[in-house]
Structures are given as C-alpha cells and as structure tokens.
C-alpha cells in the first residue's frame, strides 16, 4: 500500500513540479518623455556685456523683500515686472525703429533742402532780373492805395477806414525805412539806390525822399556804391520819425523837464559815435564798404555822411549824460515823442508816437496777432476779415518781412529789387522766394525764369514739402514718445511700487542702481540705493582666478564700502553680499513709511534694529529682451551666520535709461 502511495506521489510531482516555476511576464516598458530645459541665453554674457573686453552697464529698478510671500503677491510682482520690461523694450524699439529713422530722415531732408536752396541761389541770376524788377514794380506800385479804393467801391470797407488805412500805411513805410537804415544791409554796395520796400516806393516818391541825385543816384562804376548817406540824409532825416524843428529827443534818463535837451540830429550823432559794437558802427567801420571815407576822422565821417554836412559841435569822447541817454533811447527804439513831455506835437500823425518797430506790425503781424487788424479794422464777419487780410497784409508781409532770427536777413523785396554788387563780411542769405512767388501776387514771375531755375525751384519746393512732412512726423513721434511711451513708463514705476501695498506681507521696497564694470578680467559691481542713501557698496572680482581684487580709494570713493562678490560663468550669475552693520539705516535701510500716492516711491517697513548685524545679498543673472538688457534675481537678508535667510525677495532691473541716453546722444534725438 505504501509503495502504491509513493508511486502516486511521484505522479503528482510530475504534474505539480512544472507548475509555479514560471515568472511574471515582463511588463511593457512605459514611455518616459522629457521636456527641454530652458537654457541660459547663448549670449548670457552679452546681457551683462561681460564678453566685451571693457564695458560698463548700469541697471536700475526695484528690490522687493517679502516676509512670507504668497502666490498672488508674487503674481502681482511678476505682472508688474513683465509689464515694466515690455514697456521699456517697446520704448527702445520705438527709439531704434521710429525715432532714429525719423530724425535721420529730417536731417537728411534738411541737408537736401539746403543743397536745393543753394542751387536755387546759385542759379538766381538765371533769370532776367531787370524784367523781374520792372514786373514787380508794376504790381507793387500804388497797390495798397488801389486796393483800398477797390475795397471801398466793393463796400468791403468805409471811406473812413480807407483814410485810416492810408495813414497807417504811411507809418508802415516809415517803419521799413527805419528798419533798413539801422541794419547791416545798408553797408552793402549797390548798383542803384536800394528801396526799403517795393510796396512803399510810391509813398517815398510822394514824400520827396531820396531825391538827392548825388547821394541817391546810380553807382558810377560797376564796383557799386554805398547808399548809407542817401538813406539817412535823403530819407531818415526827412522822415517824421526824426523831426528837425524843435522837437525834443526822447531821452528817458535825462533829468526833469527844464533840463537841457538836444535836437534829434545831435542825438543821432551821439548815438553813432557811441554805438560801440552796434550794427551801425559795424557797417560804418567796414573800410571796404566806404573806401572813400578812409581819410577822414571817424567823427567827421559820421557827421558828414549822416547829417549831410551839418557841422555839429561834437566831442564824441565826452561822456555827456544827455547824449549818452539819448543814444540809449535810440538803441532801445523808444518812441520819437515821449508821453508827457512838453513838446510841440502839432502836425505829427498819431502813429509817430509809436515805437518804430511797432510800425512794422501794422502789416507784418501774423494772422494770429492782435495787431493784425491795425491796417483795416476787424468786423463782425470773419470771412470778410480774412479776405481783407489776404489782399493786403497777407501778400505784403511775405514780400516785405526781414527775418531777424540770428541776425537780419533780406526780405523778398530786398533780394529782388535791390541790386547788390558787394556785401563783403555779410553772409549771403536768400529770401524765401517761394513764399511770395508761389502766391497770387505775381502770377507772371515764373515766366521770367529759365527752365533750369524753375526745375530747381520746384525741387526746392518739394524738398521743403518733404522736410515739412518729415518734420511733422518727427515732431509727432517725439510727442508720442514723450507723452505716451515715457509717460506709460513713468506711470508703471508708480504702479510697480503699488504691488508693495499688498497686505499681509512685510515688504521692503527700494530703488537701486547697479553698475557693472568690466575691464579685462577685472569685474567691478557697484550697488547703490540712491534714493535712500549716498553710501555705495562696491565689490571687485577677478573672474579668471575667482579671487577678490583690491579697490583703489578712487574706485571706492568717499562713500564706498567693500562688498563681496562671486561670479558663476555658466549662468552669468553675480552674487553680491555686504554687511548691514549696526546702522543699516545709513546704508539705505531707514524706516521709510509708505507714501506712494504722494509720489514717494521707496518705502521700508523693516526696522533698522531688525536688520542690524545682518547682511544683504543679491544674486542676479542677465538676459536680453530684444534691445533691452535685463537682470533677474533674488534678494535676501541673511542672518548673522550669513546662511539663514530672514527675508527673501526678488530683484529685477534693466539698462533702459543708460541705453536710452546713449541712443539719444548718438543720434541727436534731444533736438
């Protein structure tokens, strides 16, 4: 029986043994994916510009410390930081891609316009100037008088207005005479007598000015003639501006009524003698302009030239207060007849009491000026007023005005009607002929031009138009940059500070400036909290050896403190640490309450006693957001052992202001 059992068990083993010897099937290998870790910028060194042999780059922005940061608080900071960076990168984009090209375009067009103008000026003789003068005379002769008559006939103005306007017109012409007489234009040599203004010639003829054939006749030779004596003797001295019969001079500083007064001619003589470096003296001292007067004494020359030979006892070296004061009166262009003076004002038109320069405003005041309606009074009809202005002041002013910006320039009337032979010592400045010739006054002028001149003038006009358009674009871009882009950055600074107002955190917010200077292997980092202290932390490191380098007293400066820095090449991570000492408030950490709404950006809610004996550390690495170098990193307040972090925070920064200043300076964008 037992053997039977044993055989049965052996059979059992045959069946059982194979069972259970197998292993679990190998599971299918599960996929394991990876993400590509972001790499530090290839030009990580470029962001801090440390690949350069020698470089300086300055970052500034905010340092923010938290006591216990939360996600939403950090989100607010990240939002703000991101916005700041994008705004500033956009601003640099705007500078590089809009402002600089616009400025270069303006500069280029200005040069092109200058070239075009010079070509026109050079080709100025390429037209029949004799015919042009005759044509202009034909238009300007009696123009004002005729126009006034027409306006009366058309019931646009009354007869009284006409009389008033004629009277004021005479005052304007006297003003133009005065303007020429006292300007260096009169020191030029002319072939014929220059006219103060083409529109006024009829008036001058009526008044008998410039009738002296010897003084005012044509030049005897092709060398030209100086008409100073003509304008003065046969013009100014005949003018009601300068009465010769017992009218007292306007000597403002003369002693009270009853004191000795001098006649106007005496005052003029005194003024000329004592003009010093004034324009009259300059013109008179130009020997090439007055070669025939060289043999005479200076005073005699003046007296003979201006006063037509009248011999007035004149001691021009005498410091006579009366004469001195009178000269000042003329220099100041004061009115001919003083108010309140005991003078005989009979026969003097009321405009003679006005300042000679004001007489010019009768016509030359701009359309926006209050004097615009001096010649013709303002009505209740705007369109009528504008039409009247266009007929008179609107056409006469461009023709007649002499630009006095940076020294007097000839008017259109001067450049076309006055035959200049020589003007040594004076810069050749052409009148803006396009302002006149493009208008309705002289429609036939272009027929006197050669085709070449017409083309050059067209090119000049196009250059002016292009420049005006480019200037408008440049101005608009500047305005947009200042009022929109920079304003947004300014607002963002305040907004960025407001993230520190989030409740529930102990926050320290400050504004810093970090300057990184590299010279070879020597890396120097300066960290300053400029709004809180004048003290600066300076660290120096030899990046080849990794050891600290010494700082010279000049490098450290009177307010500098040595800081410790390290540099990690693989990530361009710079770590700067400095001790806060016993008085951290002196190093930029005073208690400073929040007052962001009041415009006080930095604030500090951590008491100096808490920070005393601790150290402050920042670790930053660089990056580049388009044209904007940026730094990102963390900031810590470390415990006394330099390891435990009592406060943690973030540091962000960019070199926007430095880059902006460099771009502005290099491209003249401030102009």
């Amino acid at each position, binding site marked *: 029986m037992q053997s039977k059992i044993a055989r049965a068990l052996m059979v059992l083993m045959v069946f059982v043994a194979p069972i259970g010897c197998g292993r679990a099937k190998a*599971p299918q290998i599960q*996929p*394991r994916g990876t993400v590509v*870790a972001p790499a530090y910028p290839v030009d990580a060194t470029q962001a801090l510009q440390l690949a350069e042999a020698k470089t300086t780059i300055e970052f500034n922005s905010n340092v923010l410390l938290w006591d216990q940061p939360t996600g939403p608080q950090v*989100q607010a900071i990240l939002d703000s930081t991101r916005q700041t960076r994008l705004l500033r990168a956009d601003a640099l984009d705007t500078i590089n891609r809009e402002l600089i090209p616009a400025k270069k375009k303006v500069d280029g067009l200005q040069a092109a316009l200058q070239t075009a103008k010079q070509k026109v000026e050079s080709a100025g003789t390429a037209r029949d100037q004799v015919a042009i003068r005759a044509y202009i005379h034909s238009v300007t002769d009696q123009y004002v008088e005729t126009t006034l008559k027409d306006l009366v006939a058309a019931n646009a103005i009354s007869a009284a207005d006409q009389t008033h306007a004629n009277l004021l017109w005479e005052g304007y012409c006297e003003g133009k005479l005065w303007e020429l007489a006292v300007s260096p234009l009169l020191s030029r040599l002319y072939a014929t007598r220059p006219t103060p203004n083409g529109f006024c010639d009829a008036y001058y003829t009526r008044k008998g000015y410039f009738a002296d054939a010897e003084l005012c006749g044509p030049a005897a030779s092709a060398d030209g003639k100086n008409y100073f004596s003509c304008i003065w003797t046969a013009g100014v001295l005949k003018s009601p501006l300068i009465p010769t019969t017992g009218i007292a001079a306007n000597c403002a500083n003369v002693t009270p009524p009853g004191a000795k007064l001098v006649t106007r001619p005496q005052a003029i003589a005194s003024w000329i003698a004592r003009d010093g470096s004034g324009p009259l003296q300059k013109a008179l001292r130009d020997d090439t302009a007055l070669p025939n007067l060289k043999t005479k004494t200076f005073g005699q020359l003046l007296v003979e030239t201006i006063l037509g030979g009248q011999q007035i006892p004149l001691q021009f070296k005498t410091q006579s207060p009366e004469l001195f004061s009178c000269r000042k009166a003329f220099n100041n262009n004061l009115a001919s007849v003083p108010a309140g003076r005991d003078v005989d004002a009979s026969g003097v038109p009321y405009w003679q009491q006005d300042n000679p320069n004001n007489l010019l405003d009768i016509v030359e005041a701009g359309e926006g000026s209050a004097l615009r309606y001096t010649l013709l009074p303002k009505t209740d009809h705007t369109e009528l007023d504008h039409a009247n202005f266009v007929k008179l002041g609107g056409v006469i002013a461009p023709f007649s005005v002499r630009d006095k910006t940076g020294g007097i320039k000839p008017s259109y009337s001067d450049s076309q009607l006055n035959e200049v032979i020589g003007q040594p010592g004076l810069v050749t400045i052409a009148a803006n002929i396009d302002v006149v010739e493009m208008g309705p006054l002289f429609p036939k002028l272009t027929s006197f031009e050669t085709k070449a001149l017409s083309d050059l003038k067209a090119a000049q006009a196009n250059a002016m138009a292009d420049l005006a358009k480019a200037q408008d674009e440049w101005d608009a871009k500047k305005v947009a940059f200042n009022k929109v882009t920079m304003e947004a950055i300014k607002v963002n600074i305040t907004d960025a500070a407001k993230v520190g107002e989030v409740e529930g955190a102990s926050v320290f917010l400050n504004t810093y400036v970090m300057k990184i200077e590299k010279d070879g292997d020597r890396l120097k980092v300066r960290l300053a909290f400029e709004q809180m202290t004048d003290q600066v932390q300076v660290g120096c490191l030899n990046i080849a050896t990794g050891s600290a380098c010494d700082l010279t007293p000049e490098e450290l400066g009177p307010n500098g403190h040595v800081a410790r820095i390290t540099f990690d090449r693989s990530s361009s991570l710079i770590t700067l640490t400095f001790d806060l000492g016993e008085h951290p408030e002196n190093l930029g950490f005073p208690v400073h309450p929040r007052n962001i709404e009041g415009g006080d950006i930095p604030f500090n809610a951590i008491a100096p006693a808490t920070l005393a004996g601790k150290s402050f550390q920042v670790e930053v690495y660089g990056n580049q957001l388009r044209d904007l170098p940026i730094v*990102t990193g963390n900031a810590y307040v470390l415990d006394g052992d330099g390891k435990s972090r009592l406060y943690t925070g973030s540091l962000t920064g960019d070199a926007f202001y430095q880059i902006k200043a460099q771009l502005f300076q290099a491209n003249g964008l401030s102009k």
Partner: protein
Amino acid sequence: MFSPRPIIANLVLCALVGSTSAFAFEDTKVLPKGVRNLSIRTVDTRFNQTTDPSGASEPLAHLLYQDLTFAQVVRDDTKLKGAQLRGFMLQNGIQDKDSIGSFSAEITGHLTVIAPIMAFGITSKLTLALATPIYQAQTKTNVGFVPNERAQNLMALLAKPENAQIANGREAAGKLNDAVNRLNNKLANNNFQRLNAWNSSGPGDATLAAKYQYIDNSAMGLASTTGVVMPTGRRKDPDVLNDIPFGEGVWAPFAQIAVDEKLPQQFTVNQYAKYTLPLPGQKSVRTITYDELVEVGSTNARFKEGDKIDAGTSLRYDPSFGLVSGIGYSFLHKYGDVYRGDGVSTDSKKALQRWTDQTAHNAEFMLGYSTVPLYQQGRVPVPFSLRASYVKQLAGRNMPITNLAQFDFDLFF
C-alpha cells in the same frame, strides 16, 4: 497620487482553493467511513488586467494612470521658489489642477497556489476536510511619465526674456524629467515601498470544512458543507502598492448547499450555493482620502469585509471507465467592505471602501481521469484521480481578470 489600496484586488483565490473541487464542479459525494483523501490542488494564473466598476477591462495598474498637476510640482519647493512658481502660474492663467504630464504603468503578476487538502470520512455521511494552501506570487511593475504640451509651454514661458525665470524653469524641467524617480522617492519618504518588482511566498488562509450528505440515491444527491476560513495567510501590506495578499486576515464561516441530479448515461447536473460571512476584524490601513493618497499616515482600523455569495451549476460526464469531464458556470459576488470606528475619518472610510464590491462570472471546463471506478471493480490497485480544469472569467466588476489553470490530484487511501 496613487491609491495604496490593493492595486491587485483580492483575487478571491482563497475561495478557490478553499473548495474541495473546482469552482463550479461541486458535487454531493462524501468519503466512505474511514477513507482518507489527499488532494493536491495547484492553481496557476497570470494577470495584468482588471475590471472597473462598469465591468470594462482596464490595465491592472490603472490606478497608477494619474496626472501630475502643477500644484504637486510646486508643493515641495522652498517658500520663495514655491511662491515664485505659483505666482508665475497665476500670472499665466495656469490652474493648480492643470495637468503637466501623465504617469502610466503596467503591472504583471503571476500567482501559483499549491493547496494540499486532507479529507477524512468520519461517517458514511460526514466528511471532514482541511485545506492549507501555499502561495507563491510575483509582480513586476514598470512606470513611465510623459510630460504634455502644457509642460513644454511652461518651460517656454519661464524662459521668455520678459519673464526671465530661467533658473526656475531649469529646476522645474529637472523635476519633470525625473518624475518617476521622484515619485518613488516620495513613496519611500512616506514609508511606502518603491514601485519595483515584488515577490513572496507563504501560507494562505486555511479552510476547515465538514460536508454532510443528506440524500444519495439513483436520482439525486443533496449535501451541505459548512466550515470556516482561518486567517493564516499573509495580509495585504498597506505600505506595498503592488503586493498580493495571501489571506483576508479575518475568520470567515461559510455554509454551502449542493444538489446533484443524476441523469442517464452517467451524466450529472449539479447546482450549489454558498454564503461566506467574514467576521469583523482589525487591520492596519493608510488613512487615504480621494485627494491625498500618499502623504498619509497609518492606523489600525476596524473593518468588516463584505459577505460573499458563490453559486454555480455544472454538467458532468463520468463514465465508468474512468473519464471525468464537465463544463460549468459559476457566479461570485462580494459585498463592499465597511470601515468603522473613530480611528479613521469619514473621508478616509469612503476612500478605503471604494471599489471593494466585486462580481465575477466564470465558465469552467474540466477533463481528467479517475481510477476510482476501476478500483471499485477491483481492476486497479490504487484509487486516484487526476483532473485539469480551466476557469475563464467571462465578466467581472472590480476584479482582476484571472483565467486560472487548475490541476487536481486526488489520492484515496
């Protein structure tokens, strides 16, 4: 992240080996008085699939198919870095619950049970039996992690110059690229075993049963079996996610009724029904919740395993020349476990009780040879039988899909 509940749910193999025959192939026979029966039952199964509550099949390691969220990535960081990352997420509209990648895994298992069963005919109507199974089990696990597009987008966002969070990005990338190892580290830090291969062998729950035959005539048979499953087997280790328990750890009395209808030509139809009533017990569990599955502690919890119902029917053909064959159907249902007492929170109870109710429908096939009829005719000296069975799971709920191969050798003496 993962449910430390039994990844491999109770295979209910205890019930399998606790029977004196294959699942469906019950009968009403008892041993003659004084006759002994030594049965060696060997069950072998390999598995890597399970069924979900709806009955659909899914990988056995489906509970390891989990998303890694942003919140989980930042949770372990320092206060500053965590705040920086969380602030960055908020800034870019990334939610805590957003997935950054997915874990996947496969677990394969192999289980062999050798169960010696000793039976003795007390009387001609009453047979007593004792089963003492020996388990040998092994699992292998492979875990993977694939970051999704959101992860790569996050890296790109961190690296953008206007954000300039490269340092944090590199750190986050490092974490993602080491996710599987970090997972295992996290498990280990929380006293779980790392997800590596596991194997073990040892005794399972022993079963003591008494079968009484009420009726046995030419037309039918009727018998009942009562007994108890004894907690001798290795229990589920709450710190090992991929182990196989060898026992439930509680006493579980049961009662079964079986009926044979004896048909002509040596066919027999059988039906049976069995009810198992596990008694309340205590065991060590991890206090998981639906939201937190790893960083949890342990505690001893009072629990009551769900009652079980087994039922089946079969058709057998046992001709006198010794062939044994049959086909059958069996049904198993286990009710859900219940945890009690104040030692476990309500949320933990819910998590522990989830998916503990089980159902299975099986088909079985048997073929073998028995010398008992010939022995009874005096034509063979040793009465024994040898059977091979195959159990195919037709459907299930919350059950590993385990198609079993079973070999039974019976020796009568």
